[in-house]
């Protein structure tokens, strides 16, 4: 009877919905787009079939039916009636979280679900917004941002060490490379920008998709105006050029760098061919959500709903795969959230352009190369000729944008009353007339060219993890040339100051855009920016010490600003780099609390040895996105193609192939714990390996399908023109045109799996303190009735990070397994898959989607970040450092994220703190450690920031690979950071 009632109530609710949209004009108009009525069918049912209703949208009318259409365009399947009831009145963001938590699942086009969400939101807006506001209040998320941004900047204390000895041969001009006498107060311009950064609410920006959609409507997407199929590369190039020509040329007030990613102060860029339509359902509520809310103007809502999103409903990567490959299992797995997240649904990114070439030749030089290639290879394939043409079109697009900026600078200069600023604007106009078209001659030109080129990257491709590379190396020649032109010591001193300010402006420019984060993203990748990694130090392509003046200038800027993006990564070569440099890296970490992350150069290069890259290219690696190595300028490694939850394989091995939360008999039947199928540890480990291989196979398959989707929907001839490889190969980078190709995974849960395996081996098979079935029962019951067993596990099982040799060997074994499994796979560009052990913030999200584990980790708790050991593994940091250093780099060819939270003792001197950290870092590298990232903050401070976010707006923390402002994180992530092992005294 209850079921009958649910079905009736659902029907009533849908009829209420339909009546409103049929009869209220203000609502009815939303059923229409620029292309006509948005017609589709949408089903709602429960897993057991107790509820089954459908909405049919056709010709501006909505109809409700109890007879489910054979194939609705989209459908929501609820776990049970309770889940359905909850969903009916929740804001759209909550609905997505219910989806993530597998309280319901979707079938069909996710875009249509978003349309429904948007319609529900139109109807229930007042209730939804009231709920979000209440939540915002309950979590203390609302405060006076103007005041908070000022407080946080003014309250920063940056004690400064001086260099003890000058021992970097590459430092030519800085007397004390630590630049201890400069501070933010010397740069009012930067201080203003920083304040704006902290107080401005990001705005959703429809400029990019609007201009592009206009072009595609006019010129066709699948076919051109004559009905012939488009060549995707040429189509994208022409649309890109149109975009760059029509994009608003904007110069931010008082900036030394021309151009902005969007017309907004901080713009959220939209890519409806990727995941852009995911925000559709939240257009009315996102300004009110507690975490990272957006400004969304009425114009933007109108443009997106009527002109833009409907055009892309079926023209995006997910839906391309769904229709072309028939909604394959691998896609279904991704859309259930618990086992993986495939980044190609968002972007094919995470690479580094060939900046030295771009700056040295200019786009005109690159054009000349294209022309030469055409002359040298007259009999090229159509594919190649098309690509070369597409590359040229893109270059002319970026040149047009630079000219528009020059004109804008001239316009502003003409009306500028302040003579100093007028001169700056005239200077900018001259720069934009020259570059990026021509070779750069000065640091000002190089930095402006860099930025204009960078804007282009994010106009062509999603702003997710594209990285800047070794800017200290590539800008030093321009800095040096400028310094050599200075004739007096005063002029040189002033120029160094100018260089710091210019790089400061560049950092602030990088904060002018944010990736689109639908609310579910706040749970998956909370607080993340677009992770534009800059890499400093290390060795030159020839193997010499690469630390130079610009290295220290970048470090100074990193320290003064203390912002999350660009994500600064430092290479530290044990063989070549000085302790002076390492000490400065540690000092900047102490002062910024969490950046730069430190990479042991030799270990990272060792991890890539299996690829036999030429030494000069290998030595030129840069960190990408979070931490992952890319061979600068010639390598598409899409180093974050997927976040892969290894623990899902463990759960499936414990449950004979079934995933508990997804309620899905997904994997191979590898044996039942309850039936006693596992007679020794090896048989269980093998079952885990089989499940892991199975999941990796599925995720790689989906990644490859999505790669094909990118080839069809969004090849990137602009990026192809700016990298080495496509020119000669005649292939777009999405087709494998780069010199080197690979796909990089982030394997999550190494410590949790290692510890679980140790518990099973020790307690079940070696010491026989408990049977496997008993342990399994305790795990299934979240240890609620087994406190003694839980205590036993926590105290008697040696964990990874405790200094125990067996646990370390187990961690190496699991890492090797993951590495080998992915190495077996080939990607759609003919490259290999690599395995990394970092997690962005997915160790928290995947943790909430995972039951209790044999390691004693309770259901829903976060995994450890990256491959960081469990907090209770060891009382002191040294065992942690030693164990992680003991992991074999050869198994970790997509790098790692090792978090170390260090708390200086009260009253300890700055110098002592820095020197201790330097000793840790040096010893860790001496022992073979690969990467480490510090959080120099106490749990007490973090807790205070949860209660008083208004006092900690700039409190920066390292999540796993990237930096975020603590106050912008969801509660689960905040808690994970608080509970991290804290090493102090």
């Amino acid at each position, binding site marked *: 009877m209850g079921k009958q009632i649910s079905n009736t109530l659902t029907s009533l609710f849908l009829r209420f919905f339909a009546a409103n949209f049929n009869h209220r004009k203000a609502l009815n108009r939303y059923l229409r787009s620029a292309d006509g009525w948005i017609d589709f069918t949408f089903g709602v049912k429960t897993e057991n079939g107790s509820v089954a209703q459908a909405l049919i949208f056709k010709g501006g009318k909505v109809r409700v039916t109890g007879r489910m259409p054979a194939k609705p365009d989209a459908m929501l399947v609820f776990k049970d009636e309770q889940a359905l009831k909850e969903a009916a009145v929740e804001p759209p963001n909550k609905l997505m979280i219910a989806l993530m938590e597998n309280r319901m699942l979707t079938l069909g086009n996710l875009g249509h679900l978003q349309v429904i969400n948007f319609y529900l939101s139109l109807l229930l807006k007042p209730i939804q917004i009231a709920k979000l506001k209440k939540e915002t209040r309950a979590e203390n998320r609302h405060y006076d941002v103007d005041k908070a941004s000022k407080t946080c900047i003014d309250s920063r204390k940056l004690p400064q060490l001086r260099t003890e000895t000058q021992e970097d041969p590459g430092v030519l001009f800085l007397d004390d490379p630590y630049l201890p006498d400069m501070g933010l107060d010397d740069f009012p311009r930067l201080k203003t920008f920083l304040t704006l950064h902290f107080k401005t609410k990001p705005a959703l920006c429809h400029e990019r998709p609007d201009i592009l959609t206009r072009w595609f409507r006019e010129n066709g997407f699948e076919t051109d105006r004559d009905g012939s199929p488009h060549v995707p590369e040429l189509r994208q190039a022409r649309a890109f050029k149109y975009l760059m020509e029509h994009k608003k040329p904007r110069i931010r007030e008082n900036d030394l760098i021309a151009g902005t990613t969007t017309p907004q102060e901080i713009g959220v860029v939209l890519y409806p061919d990727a995941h852009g339509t995911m925000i559709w359902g939240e257009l009315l509520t996102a300004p009110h959500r507690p975490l990272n809310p957006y400004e969304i103007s009425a114009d933007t809502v109108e443009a997106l709903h009527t002109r833009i999103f409907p055009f892309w409903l079926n023209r995006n990567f997910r839906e391309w795969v769904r229709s072309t490959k028939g909604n394959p299992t691998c896609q279904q797995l991704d859309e259930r959230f618990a086992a993986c997240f495939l980044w190609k649904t968002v972007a094919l990114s995470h690479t580094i352009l060939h900046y030295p070439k771009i700056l040295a030749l200019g786009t005109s030089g690159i054009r000349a190369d294209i022309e030469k290639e055409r002359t040298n290879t007259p009999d090229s394939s159509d594919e190649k000729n098309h690509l070369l043409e597409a590359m040229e079109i893109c270059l002319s697009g970026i040149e047009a944008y630079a000219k528009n900026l020059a004109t804008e600078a001239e316009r502003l200069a003409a009306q500028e009353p302040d003579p100093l600023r007028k001169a700056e604007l005239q200077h900018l106009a001259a720069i934009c007339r020259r570059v990026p078209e021509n070779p750069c001659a000065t640091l000002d030109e190089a930095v402006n060219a860099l930025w204009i080129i960078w804007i282009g990257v994010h106009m062509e491709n999603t702003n997710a993890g594209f990285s800047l590379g070794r800017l200290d190396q590539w800008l030093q020649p321009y800095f040096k040339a400028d310094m050599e032109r200075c004739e007096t010591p005063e002029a040189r001193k002033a120029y160094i100051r100018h260089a710091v300010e210019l790089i400061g402006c560049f950092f602030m420019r990088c904060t002018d855009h944010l990736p689109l984060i639908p609310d579910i993203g706040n749970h998956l990748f909370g607080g993340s920016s677009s992770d534009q990694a800059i890499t400093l130090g290390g060795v030159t392509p020839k193997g010499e010490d690469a630390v130079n003046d610009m290295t220290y200038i970048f470090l100074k800027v990193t320290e003064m600003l203390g912002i999350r993006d660009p994500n600064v990564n430092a290479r530290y070569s044990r063989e070549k780099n000085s302790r002076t440099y390492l000490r400065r890296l540690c000092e900047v970490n102490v002062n910024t609390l969490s950046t730069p992350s430190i990479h042991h150069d030799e270990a990272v290069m060792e991890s890539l040895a299996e690829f036999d890259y030429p030494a000069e290219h290998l030595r030129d690696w840069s960190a990408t996105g979070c931490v992952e190595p890319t061979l600068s300028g010639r390598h598409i490694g899409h180093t974050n193609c997927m976040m892969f939850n290894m623990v899902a394989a463990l759960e499936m091995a414990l449950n004979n192939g079934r995933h508990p939360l997804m309620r899905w008999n997904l994997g191979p039947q590898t044996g039942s714990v309850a039936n006693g199928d596992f007679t020794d540890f090896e048989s269980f480990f093998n079952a885990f390996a089989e499940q892991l291989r199975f999941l990796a196979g599925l995720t790689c398959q989906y990644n490859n399908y999505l790669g094909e989707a990118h080839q069809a929907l969004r090849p990137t001839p602009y990026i192809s023109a700016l990298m080495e490889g496509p020119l000669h190969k005649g292939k777009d980078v999405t087709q494998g045109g780069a010199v080197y190709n690979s796909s990089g995974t982030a394997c999550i849960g190494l410590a949790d799996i290692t510890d679980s395996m140790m518990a099973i081996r020790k307690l079940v098979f070696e010491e026989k303190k408990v049977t496997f079935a008993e342990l399994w029962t305790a795990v299934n019951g979240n240890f609620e009735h087994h*406190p*003694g*067993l*839980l*205590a*036993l596990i*926590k*105290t*008697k099982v040696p964990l990874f990070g405790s*200094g125990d040799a067996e646990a370390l060997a187990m961690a190496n074994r699991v890492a090797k397994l993951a590495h080998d499994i992915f190495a077996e796979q080939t990607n759609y560009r003919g490259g290999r898959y690599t395995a990394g052990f970092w997690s962005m913030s997915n160790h928290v999200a995947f943790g909430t989607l995972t039951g209790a584990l044999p390691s004693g980790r309770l259901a829903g708790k976060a995994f450890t970040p990256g491959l960081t050991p469990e907090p209770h593994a060891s*009382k*002191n*940091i*040294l*065992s942690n*450092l*030693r164990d992680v250093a003991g992991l074999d780099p050869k198994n970790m060819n997509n790098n790692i994220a090792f978090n170390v939270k260090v708390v200086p*003792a009260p009253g300890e001197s700055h110098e*002592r703190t820095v*020197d*201790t950290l*330097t*000793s*840790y870092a*040096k*010893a860790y590298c*001496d*022992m073979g450690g690969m990467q480490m990232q510090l959080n120099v903050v106490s749990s007490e401070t973090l807790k205070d920031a949860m209660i008083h976010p208004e006092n900690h707006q700039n409190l920066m923390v390292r999540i796993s690979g990237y930096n975020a402002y603590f106050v912008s994180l969801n509660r689960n992530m905040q808690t994970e950071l608080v509970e991290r092992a804290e*090493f102090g*005294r």
Partner: protein
Amino acid sequence: MTDEAQKTPLVLEIKGNSLDDGPGIRSVVFFKGCPLSCVWCHNPESRKAGPEIAFDGKLCVDCGECRKICPEKALSKTHPLYVDRTRCTLCFLCTNVCPSGALEPVGKSMTVDAIMNKILPDKPFYDTSGGGVTLSGGEATLFMDFASDLLKALKHEGIHTLLETCGSFDLTRFMAQVYPHVDAMYYDLKIMDSRKHQQFCGLPNSRILENFKALLKTAARDGKVLLPRTPLIPGITDTEDNIRALAEFLSALSVTRAALLAYNPLWHEKSDKVGVDDPYKKDKAMTSFSDGGVLERCQSIYQDYGISVVNAG
């Protein structure tokens, strides 16, 4: 004290990553057993040289296994300290079954090799920080042969060695066995009035002072650090009289550097764990952290005598 205990001491703990017990990053080996019996002892579990059982209520999950196995019925939830030490025979059956580590044996018999195996993996940290290994306690010189072997093994590995000592030892044996292998000594001078020293620390201070004078003569010559240290215990060592007397003693010996340690009351909790009598449990001064004023006051007295107070860490 039995001869056997002197040969193979119990080690309470090897604490890694210590930044307070000498220069750089250090490991500290805590020996169990001390000739003194200071009423404020920071490591009450280190006073007796023999084995003990500790109970930490915060870790207990109340599974009841220990109560089932105890043949003496010495464990009870109604006993304020859980372990009735008048009944306990230290058979350690309970610590064996305890899953949570709430009941633990205090002190572990370790060979020099075993200690070295624990310590050596951290050598890279000593090397990069100018750190090393500190012997502390309890009192390492209570086990002169063993301490000597351990220090020799450390020096063999090129590790910097530091001894924290109460100074109550046989000087001849010390000079022959320990002194040659230490790079630095942190030497406690607590109370100048010998009667009071006897009252609060269990022994008169004459031997301690004589030993200090003797070491002072050789240390500088041999390039070894000898740093006198005084823990500031409210009303006991931090009195005007005592600090002045210490300063006089040191300045008469031309000592110019000394350490003063701010009071830390965290030892009370440890007393309960091992069931040691704690007459100061309810004493306000003895249960609070000192404010900076005490340290400052004592420091300025030292300065009057030309002694600069250094950080002992």
